[in-house]
């Protein structure tokens, strides 16, 4: 394969609850074995987003040609959120924004997130988050959620994390009909036919490979795409070309040049 491989979804830092250490060398070893050129990396473990973003930069500094920094933003501290985004993107060169509404107890279309989105929209960047939450109001649909968000923030792009663990028709349809919404593949489940389903429903341009490293192994997660029954060109797009286009990595570089 002669196109770049980019892991769109991974985490920096320790997660001792599952025996995961903050080990950059191990990270690089697994990336090498998996055939991953570059990994988009965030840290969502800290209530202090600044601390997590600084930790991400330790990885980026250790291997700037391998890691792409991703900014974490949390509405728990609205007085800090936009200021930290300014720093993370303009000073640290981070490439997109990760939010984690599960920690906030309100879904990603809650107005508490809107100041963050206004900033992201103004900067025409991407946000990655889950597509659904345990606390979603009855009747919530993914398509309805992201249609409303896209109407309100037309310059943003959205990446729905973990949308290849099951065959999720709502997520795939959302990515198909909304040009600014993408699907990301990582999951501890590897549902039979999920990659094929997403490519068929959403299109090969709308799916991004992600691993959830260091919780999950990039070698196992990338295999969902590598061994899928889809055309070779589709695999190349999912494994890297779509991320390059989405993050405009072939243009002015962010978080380290490609």
């Amino acid at each position, binding site marked *: 394969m002669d196109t770049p491989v980019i892991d769109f979804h991974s985490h920096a830092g320790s997660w001792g609850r*599952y025996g995961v250490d903050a080990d950059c060398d191990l990270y690089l070893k697994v990336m090498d074995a998996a055939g991953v050129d570059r990994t988009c990396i965030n840290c969502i473990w800290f209530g202090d987003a600044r601390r997590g973003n600084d930790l991400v930069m330790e990885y980026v500094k250790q291997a700037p040609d391998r890691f792409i920094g991703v900014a974490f933003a949390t509405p728990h501290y609205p007085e800090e959120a936009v200021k930290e985004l300014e720093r993370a993107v303009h000073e640290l060169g981070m490439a997109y924004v990760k939010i984690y509404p599960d920690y906030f107890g309100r879904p990603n279309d809650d107005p508490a997130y809107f100041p963050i989105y206004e900033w992201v929209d103004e900067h025409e960047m991407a946000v990655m988050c889950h597509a659904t939450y345990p606390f979603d109001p009855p009747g919530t649909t993914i398509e309805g959620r992201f249609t409303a968000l896209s109407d309100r923030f037309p310059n943003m792009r959205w990446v729905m994390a973990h949308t290849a663990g099951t065959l999720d028709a709502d997520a795939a349809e959302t990515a198909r009909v909304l040009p600014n919404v993408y699907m990301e593949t990582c999951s501890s489940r590897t549902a039979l036919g999920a990659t094929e389903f997403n490519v068929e429903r959403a299109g090969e341009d709308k799916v991004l490979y992600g691993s959830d490293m260091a919780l999950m192994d990039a070698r196992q997660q990338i295999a969902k795409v590598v061994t899928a029954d889809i055309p070779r060109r589709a695999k190349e797009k999912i494994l890297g070309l779509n991320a390059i286009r989405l993050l405009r990595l072939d243009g002015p570089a962010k978080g380290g040049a490609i």
Partner: protein
Amino acid sequence: MMTPGVDLDFRPTVPAFDANAALGRRHDRRVAVDDAAGLLAEMDRAGVERALVYAPHAAAFDSAEGNAGLLEAIGDESRLAPQFVCNPPFDDLDETAAQIEAADARAVRMVPTLHHYPFRSWVVGGWLEWLSARGIPLWLPASYETNWHDGADLDAHAVHETVRQFPDLTVVLCEVHYVQASWAPPLLRSLPNLSIEVSRYVIADGIAQLLGIVGPGRVMFGSRFPEQAIAPQLYHLHRLGLNETDLRAVCGGNLARLLRM
């Protein structure tokens, strides 16, 4: 930078024998593949030669009915090895033993989390004694999820206390998720007759760590088909940097040895 390490034309380089596949319909959802022909087609696509299969109905509802249905579904297909599900509190040992021997089933699965019994000698002792004497290995899922069952964790302490009383019995811990990574490795370390099937063990570098703890003779490839695809974990195993002998053992040799096949 270009990494040449992704193999879009991957095929396993050693014989693969799947240690964890289900065959047959489920009551709680429609599965993508529920018959032998479909399973064999997926095995062919993934490059897997053989599979050890059990019936979900035997786990979820009735072991005798499910096991009989499994044999019917397998027919005379030699690539599929039957694994009987047993429910010690209610199944008759002598009757089940006769069925296992008649079917030449080489492995048994117990699901104490779903069947609601303590995995203790006073419940399963007679069964483990029989399995041990016959050289039949026992599979224990770390949890078992259905749409109406919460998938509670296996009682690791009960497994430890019980399995250590049967040192000649081989027990295979299967379907271990990363949330069970807190107790599965110590359990493996403390029980030399315990092996692990890795269909759900996706924690980063986790399999390499397991190999470091128990060596290549006690780690086995499994897919958890049809809930999961067959090939991804096989690809993963081929990317661990194992020598060919160890890769052969993990991908199928260990299972073939346990099943005397």
